C-alpha cells in the first residue's frame, strides 16, 4: 500500500473482483520512529479534522527514508511527497524542522473553498503535528547521539500523552433543620419522581405509545431552498405509492387557517407562495407506515424560482438592514461619560447559536374524536399554546382540542413554540383523514426545521479609568432571528436586560436589532438571549483588562454590583448576593494560590498554557411578557386519601413535578408518596403558560400551595375533631359529609410590570438569581485542544426545594453552556443549508468533556421572600457560568501570545511573515497581531472557542506562514451566521 492506494474520495485501488483481506502494520525497526496524530472537535467519538501518520528511518541523525501521511487535507489520505523528498539525507535538526514546516504548508495547503471548511486551521495542523513528531524523534536520538541536543523540560512536557485525571466532585448544601417534620420533604434531595421508570425504560414518551390499529404516519416535505418562489408542488408520484393516503399542502387549507406564529401571525403551516428557509414545511405525506411515508415524501416534486439572494449571515442582514424596529434601554449620559473618561475601547464579538439537541426528537400523536374534537399527545413545553395553534388551524374552538403532555425527553426551549411546526400539520391530517396520525421527526429533520438559539453579533464601546472601573457602555446587539418573529423580540429584550451581567455602570445604552434572515426561525433556548449578551459583557471585561494590563479578575471585581445598585433598566437590586457568591467561590477554589500556580505553569511551559477565570452571572426571574406570569393547579383528593395533582407546568426532566409534589406534600402535611402527577393537560388546567423562563416552580408552586390551602381549610374541622386519626380518616369523614375534595389554585405574579422602551419605565423582574464560577483549563497551543481541569461554582438558589434537583440543574446547565461556548458549532452553507444535521457533525459535550473536578455549593443562608417556600428559579440561571471556561481559555491563549518562546518557535526569522494574518475572517474571529505590545493585546475571540479558534489565536510562526484567505474573494464551504 502506498500513496496511490486511495484514488479519490471514498474510492481506493481495489478492483471489483478483489477483497482487501488484511493490512499488515510492521513493527518499527531500529532507528525507525512512528507516531500518529489526530485532532477532532471532541476528543472522543468524533472524526478527525486532520490527522497524520508520520514515520522516519535514520542513520545516526540523517534521514534515510520518511513517510508523512496526512488525512483531512484532501479528498483522500495524502502523502507529502515533495516534503518527504526534501527531507532525505538531511540531519534531524532545527534546519530540517524549518524546511518541513514551510514545505508542508506550501505542498498541502487546504484550498479556502475545500469541503469541510476550517481550511487555514487544517493547514496549520500539519506542521503542528510534525513539530511534535520532530521533538519525539529528537528526544529518542538524543539518548544515543551526543550531537543531538536533549529536549528541554517544556519540550518534553508536550510529548506527554493526554491523560485525564479521574473525575472528582463535591456538593455542599445545607441539611434541613433537625426539627423539620420527617414527612416534610422540602429541602431534601429526593430523587426524580419517575427516576425508576426512566432507568428501567418503563417511562413512556409519545413515540412509545402503542399504535392505534388505524393509525397513519405523517412525514413533512421540506424546502430545499432558502429564499425562492414556489412554482409548483407535484405529489402525483408520491400518491401513486400503495399505502399513501393523502398529501396536504397550502392549497388544501383556507388561507386564514394556514397562518400561524407564536406572537405575530407571520408564519404558515405550509409554505404557500414562497419558501423562506431550507427546511420549511411545504407539505405533509400521510401513509400507512413511516417507511412508506418517508419514501413517498422524497418523491414530491417542488419546483422553485429563485429571484433574490437569500440573507443568511448576520453580516448580510446588517448590510441589508434586514431587522425589526430596534429598541434601546439606557440610563445616565453616555456621551458625556465617554468624553470625560480616561480610556475608551471598542470592539466586536460574535456568539454562535446552539442546537437544543433534546435527546427525544419532536414526537406527537393526534387522535380525532367525535364532534370535530381532537386529542393530542404532544411532547411540548406549552400544551395550551399548541391547543390554540391546532384549534386555529382546524377552525374549531379551543374546547374541542385537548392537548396532553406526560413528559418530554428534554426541551430546553426547543419544544416551546416550535412544537407547532410538526404537531399542527399532523393535526390537519388527522382531521382530514379522520384517523389517528403520528408524526416523529428524524434527527436531521428536527435540526433543519425547528430553529436554534439565536446567534448574536455585538459592537461595543466602553469608557473606564485606570483601575478598570467602567463609567460608560454602549452596546449594539444584533440577533439572527431567522425567517419569522417568533420569540425573537422577547429574546432580544432579555439580552438587553442581561447586558450588564453583574456589573454596575451608571451610563449605559444598549440597542437591540432583531435581524430577519433566511434561516429557520430561531427561538427560545435556556437563557433566552441572556447568555449571549452576558458573553459580550464579559468580552468587554476581558479586553478592558488586557488593554490596561490588569488582571481581569480585578477588573471584574471593581465593577461588581452592590446590594441596592440600580441596573441600566433602572430596577433596584434587592438582596443582591453576587459579592457573597464571589467571595465564597474564590475561597472554595483557592483562587489566589491557583492563580499563582497557573502563572508558574505558564512560565515553565511553552506549548501548553493554562488559564484560570472567574465569571459571575445574574438572571432576572419573570416572564418579560407580563401576562405569562400566571399559573393554575388542580388538586384532587380521592376517598382513600390519595392525591392526584395537576398543574400548568410540563415535565421535561427538570424535576418540576418532583418539586410540585414536595410543595403539595408540605402544604397538605402528608407523605410525598401519597401524591401522584399523571400528566399536564389542557382539560385539567386551562390557559397555562409555557414551561419556560425558569418560572414554572415559582408560578405553579404558588398555585399548588393555594389549592392545597383550600383543601386544608376544608379538612380542618375533621382534623380538629380527631387530631390523631390521620389524613385518610379526615378525608373519608369529609367525603361522607359531602365536602368537596378537589380544589383549584391560581397565582399571578404581583409587582412586575413590563419594561416600556418608550418611557424606560417598568419592573420586568420579580427578583434576581446570582452565581459565580471559577474554571481552570489547559490548552495545547499547537492543536487548539483543551481540557477543563476544574470548575467551582457557588450558586444562590434561595432555600432549595430540592438540593439534588437544583445541583442537577446547575451541573446540566453548566455543561450545556460549556457546549455553547466551546464545542458546539452550527455550520451553514453560504446558501443557508444547515450542514451539521446530526450528532456525527454537531458535537455535544460527552462524558469525557466535563470538568475533571467539579465542585458545586449552594450559597449558605440564602433565602427569597418572593417565591414559593423561599426558593429561587434554577433552570436557566447557571448556564452562563460556563463562560468561565471560555474566559479561562482566553487567558491561556493570551499567555501563549505573550510568550516570545511560543511565538517564535518552529521557523527562522528569514521566512517572511504573512501580513494578512491580522485580517483573519469573522469565521475564526481572531486576529494575529504579533507586533502589538503584549500588555495591550486585546485580541478578539468569538464564541464558541473551538479547537480551530483556539489554535488560530495562538499565533506563532506557523500561523504566520499559513495564508488567510480574504473574505469575499472565494466561496467558502460554510459561513458563520
Amino acid at each position, binding site marked *: 500500500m502506498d500513496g496511490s492506494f486511495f484514488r479519490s474520495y471514498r474510492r481506493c485501488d481495489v478492483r471489483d473482483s478483489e477483497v482487501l483481506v488484511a493490512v499488515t502494520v510492521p513493527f518499527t525497526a531500529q532507528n525507525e520512529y512512528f507516531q500518529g496524530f489526530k485532532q477532532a472537535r471532541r476528543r472522543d467519538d468524533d472524526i478527525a479534522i486532520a490527522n497524520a501518520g508520520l514515520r522516519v528511518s535514520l542513520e545516526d541523525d540523517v534521514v534515510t527514508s520518511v513517510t508523512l501521511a496526512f488525512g483531512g487535507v484532501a479528498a483522500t489520505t495524502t502523502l507529502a511527497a515533495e516534503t518527504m523528498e526534501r527531507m532525505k539525507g538531511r540531519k534531524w535538526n532545527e534546519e530540517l524542522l524549518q524546511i518541513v514546516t514551510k514545505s508542508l504548508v506550501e505542498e498541502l495547503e487546504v484550498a479556502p473553498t475545500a469541503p469541510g471548511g476550517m481550511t487555514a486551521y487544517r493547514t496549520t495542523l500539519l506542521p503542528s503535528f510534525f513539530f511534535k513528531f520532530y521533538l519525539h524523534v529528537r528526544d529518542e536520538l538524543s539518548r544515543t547521539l551526543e550531537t543531538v541536543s536533549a529536549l528541554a523540560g517544556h519540550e518534553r512536557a508536550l510529548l506527554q500523552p493526554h491523560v485525564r485525571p479521574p473525575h472528582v466532585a463535591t456538593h455542599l448544601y445545607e441539611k434541613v433543620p433537625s426539627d423539620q417534620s420527617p414527612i416534610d420533604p422540602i429541602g431534601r434531595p429526593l430523587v*426524580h419522581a419517575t427516576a425508576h421508570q426512566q432507568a428501567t425504560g418503563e417511562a413512556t414518551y409519545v413515540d412509545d405509545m402503542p399504535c392505534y390499529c388505524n393509525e397513519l404516519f405523517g412525514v413533512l416535505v421540506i424546502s430545499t431552498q432558502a429564499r425562492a418562489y414556489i412554482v409548483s408542488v407535484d405529489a402525483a408520484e408520491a400518491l401513486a405509492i400503495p399505502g399513501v393516503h393523502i398529501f396536504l399542502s397550502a392549497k388544501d387549507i383556507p388561507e386564514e387557517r394556514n397562518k400561524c406564529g407564536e406572537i405575530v401571525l407571520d408564519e404558515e403551516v405550509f409554505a404557500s407562495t414562497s419558501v423562506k428557509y431550507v427546511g420549511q414545511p411545504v407539505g405533509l405525506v400521510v401513509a400507512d407506515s413511516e417507511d412508506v411515508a418517508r419514501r413517498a415524501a422524497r418523491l414530491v416534486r417542488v419546483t422553485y424560482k429563485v429571484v433574490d439572494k437569500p440573507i443568511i449571515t448576520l453580516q448580510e442582514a446588517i448590510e441589508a438592514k434586514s431587522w425589526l424596529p430596534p429598541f434601546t434601554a439606557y440610563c445616565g449620559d453616555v456621551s458625556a461619560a465617554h468624553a470625560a473618561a480616561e480610556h475608551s475601547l471598542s470592539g466586536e464579538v460574535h456568539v454562535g447559536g446552539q442546537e437544543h439537541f433534546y435527546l427525544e426528537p419532536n414526537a406527537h400523536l393526534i387522535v380525532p374524536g367525535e364532534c370535530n374534537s381532537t386529542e393530542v399527545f404532544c411532547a411540548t413545553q406549552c400544551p395550551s399554546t399548541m391547543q390554540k395553534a391546532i384549534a386555529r388551524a382546524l377552525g374549531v374552538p379551543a374546547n374541542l382540542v385537548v392537548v396532553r403532555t406526560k413528559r418530554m425527553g428534554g426541551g430546553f426551549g426547543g419544544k416551546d413554540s416550535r412544537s407547532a411546526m410538526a404537531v399542527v400539520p399532523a393535526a390537519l391530517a388527522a382531521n382530514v383523514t379522520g384517523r389517528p396520525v403520528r408524526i416523529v421527526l428524524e434527527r436531521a429533520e428536527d435540526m433543519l426545521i425547528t430553529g436554534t438559539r439565536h446567534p448574536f453579533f455585538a459592537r461595543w464601546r466602553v469608557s473606564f479609568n485606570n483601575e478598570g472601573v467602567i463609567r460608560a457602555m454602549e452596546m449594539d446587539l444584533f440577533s439572527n432571528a431567522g425567517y419569522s418573529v417568533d420569540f425573537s423580540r422577547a429574546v432580544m429584550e432579555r439580552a438587553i436586560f442581561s447586558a450588564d451581567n453583574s456589573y454596575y455602570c451608571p451610563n449605559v445604552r444598549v440597542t437591540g436589532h432583531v435581524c430577519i434572515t433566511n434561516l429557520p426561525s430561531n427561538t427560545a433556548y435556556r437563557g433566552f438571549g441572556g447568555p449571549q449578551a452576558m458573553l459580550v459583557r464579559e468580552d468587554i471585561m476581558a479586553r478592558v483588562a488586557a488593554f490596561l494590563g490588569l488582571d481581569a479578575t480585578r477588573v471584574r471585581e471593581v465593577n461588581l454590583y452592590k446590594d441596592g445598585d440600580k441596573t441600566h433598566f433602572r430596577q433596584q437590586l434587592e438582596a443582591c448576593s453576587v459579592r457573597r457568591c464571589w467571595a465564597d467561590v474564590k475561597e472554595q477554589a483557592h483562587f489566589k494560590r491557583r492563580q499563582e500556580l497557573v502563572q508558574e505553569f505558564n512560565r515553565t511551559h511553552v506549548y501548553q498554557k493554562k488559564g484560570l477565570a472567574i465569571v459571575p452571572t445574574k438572571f432576572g426571574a419573570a416572564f418579560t411578557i407580563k401576562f405569562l406570569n400566571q399559573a393554575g393547579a388542580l388538586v384532587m383528593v380521592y376517598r382513600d386519601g390519595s392525591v392526584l395533582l395537576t398543574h400548568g407546568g410540563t415535565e421535561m426532566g427538570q424535576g418540576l413535578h418532583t418539586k410540585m409534589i414536595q410543595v403539595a406534600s408540605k402544604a397538605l402535611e402528608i407523605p410525598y408518596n401519597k401524591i401522584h402527577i399523571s400528566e399536564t393537560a389542557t382539560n385539567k388546567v386551562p390557559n397555562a403558560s409555557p414551561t419556560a423562563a425558569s418560572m414554572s416552580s415559582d408560578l405553579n408552586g404558588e398555585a399548588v400551595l393555594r389549592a392545597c390551602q383550600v383543601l386544608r381549610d376544608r379538612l380542618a374541622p375533621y382534623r380538629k375533631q380527631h387530631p390523631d386519626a390521620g389524613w385518610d380518616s379526615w378525608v373519608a369523614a369529609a367525603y361522607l359529609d359531602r365536602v368537596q375534595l378537589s380544589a383549584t389554585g391560581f397565582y399571578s405574579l404581583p409587582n412586575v410590570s413590563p419594561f416600556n422602551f418608550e418611557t424606560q419605565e417598568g419592573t420586568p423582574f420579580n427578583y434576581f438569581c446570582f452565581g459565580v464560577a471559577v474554571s481552570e483549563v489547559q490548552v495545547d497551543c499547537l492543536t487548539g485542544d483543551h481540557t477543563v481541569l476544574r470548575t467551582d461554582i457557588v450558586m444562590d438558589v434561595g432555600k432549595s426545594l430540592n438540593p439534588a434537583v437544583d445541583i442537577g440543574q446547575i451541573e446540566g446547565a453548566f455543561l450545556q453552556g460549556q457546549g455553547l461556548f466551546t464545542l458546539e458549532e452550527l455550520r451553514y452553507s453560504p446558501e443557508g443549508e444547515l450542514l451539521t444535521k446530526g450528532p456525527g457533525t454537531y458535537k455535544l459535550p460527552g462524558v469525557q468533556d466535563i470538568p475533571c473536578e467539579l465542585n458545586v455549593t449552594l450559597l449558605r443562608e440564602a433565602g427569597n421572600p418572593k417565591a414559593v417556600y423561599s426558593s429561587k428559579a434554577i433552570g436557566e440561571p447557571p448556564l452562563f457560568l460556563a463562560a468561565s471556561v471560555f474566559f479561562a481559555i482566553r487567558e491561556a491563549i493570551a499567555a501563549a501570545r505573550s510568550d516570545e518562546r511560543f511565538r517564535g518557535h518552529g521557523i527562522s526569522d528569514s521566512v517572511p511573515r504573512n501580513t494578512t494574518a491580522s485580517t483573519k475572517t469573522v469565521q475564526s474571529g481572531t486576529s494575529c497581531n504579533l507586533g502589538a505590545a503584549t500588555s495591550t493585546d486585546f485580541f478578539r475571540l468569538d464564541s464558541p472557542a473551538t479547537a480551530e479558534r483556539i489554535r488560530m489565536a495562538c499565533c506563532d510562526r506557523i500561523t504566520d506562514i499559513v495564508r488567510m484567505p480574504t473574505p469575499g474573494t472565494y466561496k467558502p464551504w460554510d459561513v458563520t451566521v
Partner: protein
Amino acid sequence: MNPLVFFVNGKRVEEQQPDPEWNLLWYLRSKLGLVGSKLGCGEGGCGACTVMLSKLVDGQVRHFSVNACLSPVVTLHGTAVTTVEALGSAPDRLHPIQERLAKAHGSQCGFCTPGFVMSAYALLRSQPTLPSLEQLEDALVGNLCRCTGYRPILEGLRTLTSDGQTTCGRADCCRNREY
C-alpha cells in the same frame, strides 16, 4: 430456506422473510413492542438505542454493546439480544445498575437513561472482574446526555468499578463516614 433465528431477552424470535432494511431498533420497538430502547438520532451518535448483543466468538460467548439503530436484523442470526426490559422493572425490582443510576440522580428527562444502563451492563457482562473507572468512562463515550452533565451518571455507576468505590471520587467521601 432456513428462517432467521435469534433471541431477544431469552425468547426465541424467528423470521421467515426478514427484510434487509429492518434495523434492530425498529424491530424491537415496532414488532416486539419493546420500547425501552429509544431512537435519538438513527446514526449511532447518541447511544439512546444501546442494547447488548451476545454471540459465539471462537467457541466463547462474548457480549458487546451495540447501537440497535445501526444493526441490521439480518446480521443477527444465532445471536442473543438483551434490552433494558430484561434487567429490572420499577414495580418489581431494579437492577443494581438501574438503582444506582436512579438514586444518584442520573436521570433527568430519562430518554438517554436506558442506553447508559445498557452500555454499563454490557461492560459488566463482558469481563469476569469489575471494570476500572477508566473502562467505565470509555464504555460511556458513545452515550450522549443533554440534561445531567454526566457527573451524576458517573457517580451512580462508578460504585460498580474496581477503583471508583466512592461516589464522588474522593478518598474521604462523606458518605463513607460514620455519623
